[in-house]
């Protein structure tokens, strides 16, 4: 199918500095439509920064990012427009505390996209129902658990009908028993063919949801591999070391 080979995002030789620190050093990556890319790596390897560069939350100092052929690293990039196509879900949900669930979800569609309110509301309710939270639509974020908030944040991103969603360690702040409900939602999206870039520390999840694994260390991509291969016989020594941390051998 031609649709499956369409390249949505193309990153080439991306460079990013925080002061003297070289946070991203020559990142090159392609994302095809419908593909689920999981980015793994030790803390501080630059994986979250990479995601933030992809929707313009961080400026870059070199290299290029193309979205459907459009250069995002040149001047006069209309990020407002681009961000409607490249959604993002944050580690700490970042719902707006002064708005109800439904107001949170509809803010983007109504104000940024200026969509018809009836149509947007219908979509929002359908999506809420799918994550099992339709009954909570008039609640405020403070009345919800962490897992529920994160599911709402995913719905909020989905309701913009984006081409790609970036997930930045979305389960890292959750209590263990709530991780599952959020990962299930993301797995569901993967099955529907949503294009996603996922930064996570959940190895089992990475293995089951990812079409491929991108392993990063010290601002560079060390290897890109099929999940089965990455978790059974990683090509690089660095990845081997990284995976060993997650193994608990009996003493």
């Amino acid at each position, binding site marked *: 199918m031609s649709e499956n080979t369409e390249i949505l995002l193309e990153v080439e030789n991306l460079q990013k500095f925080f002061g003297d620190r070289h946070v991203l050093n020559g990142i090159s990556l392609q994302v095809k439509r419908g593909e689920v890319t999981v980015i793994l790596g030790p803390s501080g390897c630059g994986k979250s920064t990479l995601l933030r560069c992809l*929707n*313009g*939350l961080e400026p870059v100092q070199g290299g290029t990012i193309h979205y459907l052929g459009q250069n995002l690293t040149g001047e006069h990039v209309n*990020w*407002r*427009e681009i*961000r*409607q196509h490249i*959604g*993002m879900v*944050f580690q*700490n949900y*970042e*719902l*707006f*505390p*002064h708005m109800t669930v439904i107001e949170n979800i509809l*803010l*983007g569609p109504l*104000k*940024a*996209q200026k969509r018809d309110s009836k149509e947007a509301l219908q979509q929002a309710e359908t999506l809420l129902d799918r994550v099992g939270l339709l009954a909570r639509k008039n609640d*405020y*974020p*403070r009345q919800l658990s962490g897992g529920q908030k994160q599911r709402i944040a995913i719905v*909020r*991103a989905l309701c*913009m009908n984006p081409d790609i969603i970036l997930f930045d360690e979305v389960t890292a702040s959750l209590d263990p028993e709530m991780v599952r409900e959020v990962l299930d939602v993301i797995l569901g999206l993967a099955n529907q063919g949503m294009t996603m870039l996922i930064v996570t520390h959940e190895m089992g999840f990475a293995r089951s949801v990812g079409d491929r694994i991108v392993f990063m260390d010290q601002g560079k991509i060390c290897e890109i591999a099929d999940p089965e291969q990455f978790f059974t016989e990683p090509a690089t020594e660095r990845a081997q070391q990284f995976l060993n941390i997650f193994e608990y051998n009996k003493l």
Partner: protein
Amino acid sequence: MPNSGVEVLFEGSNFERLLGGLLVTIEIAFISIMIGTILGVVMGLLRTVPTRSLRLLLRLYLEAFRIIPILVWLYVVHFSFSPLLHIDISGETTAILVFSLWGAAEIGDIVRGALESMPKHQAESGKALGLSKGQLYRYVLIPQAVRRMLPGAINLATRMVKTTSLVVLIGVIDVVKVGQQIIELGVIKAPNASFWVYGLIFILYFLVCYPLSVLSRKYERRWQS
């Protein structure tokens, strides 16, 4: 009960005079809060600019009002500046001037605090939805900043209402002064008058400030997340 003194409240025009005094109190407080809020918002925004010298200056201004008693400010303006500059400003104008400047300093600090405490991620979250800068401020940042500011601002308003009682000392006839006059006038005839007069003033202040206090608590409860 003979001569309890309560009737002094309703003798002649005493009650109306007390209410008139209260009106002066409310007027000074209200005008000062209005002017102080407008100046304070500007000052709060200026206190978040990168220019260090400007920030330092405004910080000193705030400290000047926190460290020096308001009474001293009233004296300095009323008894030192106006003769020195040969301008004749009434006690009431002095009071409004000093209270407005005080309000501006404190509101400025509240605005600065609210702006600085706004998590950076809230702005990013709005941006990630494709909101424009204007929309971001209008729908996400300003509503939250106002919610953070309101309890502090209302608290300040009650403090200002209470502190207006100092204006007696620069000759303004406010509710406390009217009360004193009534008591002094009837000191022989009704020695218990002070109990009733101050009792009424007590209740009047309470009636003005309590609704503000309730309002502040209501918002604090509703908006804490």
